[in-house]
């Protein structure tokens, strides 16, 4: 499944990184601890988090993640969006909580 299909099915708003909408998604990882993501997430996963600063994109890029989903309507910092566009890693937003959006994404991908 692509990031774009997930965006459509979960009614996510795309905020940046449109170039990466065709990225393939293999799964997801949910965490607000950066070292946890660094150590345990894997390439092509979607990262679900409330962190909204530029380091999120640095990690997403280093780990070759497919996209980042910001929960509870959290808005990314300007420089986070800048790096999302540069790297072509989509940043998507939802009004849902981490619990709800993770449940829905799990259903889609399983």
């Amino acid at each position: 499944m692509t990031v774009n299909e997930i965006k459509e099915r979960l009614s996510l708003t795309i905020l940046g990184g449109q170039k990466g909408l065709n990225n393939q998604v293999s799964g997801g990882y949910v965490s607000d601890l950066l070292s946890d993501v660094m150590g345990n997430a894997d390439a092509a996963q979607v990262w679900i988090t409330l962190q909204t600063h530029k380091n999120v994109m640095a990690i997403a890029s280093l780990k070759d993640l497919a996209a980042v989903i910001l929960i509870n309507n959290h808005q990314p910092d300007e420089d986070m969006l800048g790096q999302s566009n540069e790297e072509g890693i989509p940043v998507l937003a939802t009004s849902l909580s981490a619990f709800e959006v993770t449940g829905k994404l799990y259903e889609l991908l399983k």
Partner: protein
Amino acid sequence: MHFEYQIEGGNFTRAGFASSEIKKMMKQLNVDMGVIKRTVVSTYEAEVNVVAHAFSGTIYVDLDEEKIVIQLQDQGPGIPDIDQAMKEGFSTASSAVREMGFGAGMGLPNIKRNADDFQITSEVNKGTNVKITMFFNK
């Protein structure tokens, strides 16, 4: 091949830059993706530790056909008890740093788990040296 990168303590906007350059270089050299992934985790955590805990630092990268050696030398407070610092969950990070999602105390354990060889030495009130070695054919 030899490369050097400077790290500025406290400047989180540039954290991960050197790790990203090292990753690109290894990809160009067609190093095994699994080795690159483990190098990225180790190097990023060591780089962030200089940003989060020290004043300034330098990364020295040496690369040949068999291995990459990444040494991080910083000027900073040093680590009084390395065994304690290596424990999963131990962190002296400030609350501002924790709010960003850093400071979970998982950095040094992540390095230990991912590096083929990992050496750390430190002198209080002077600085810390981290040496990460990754072998290409393993």
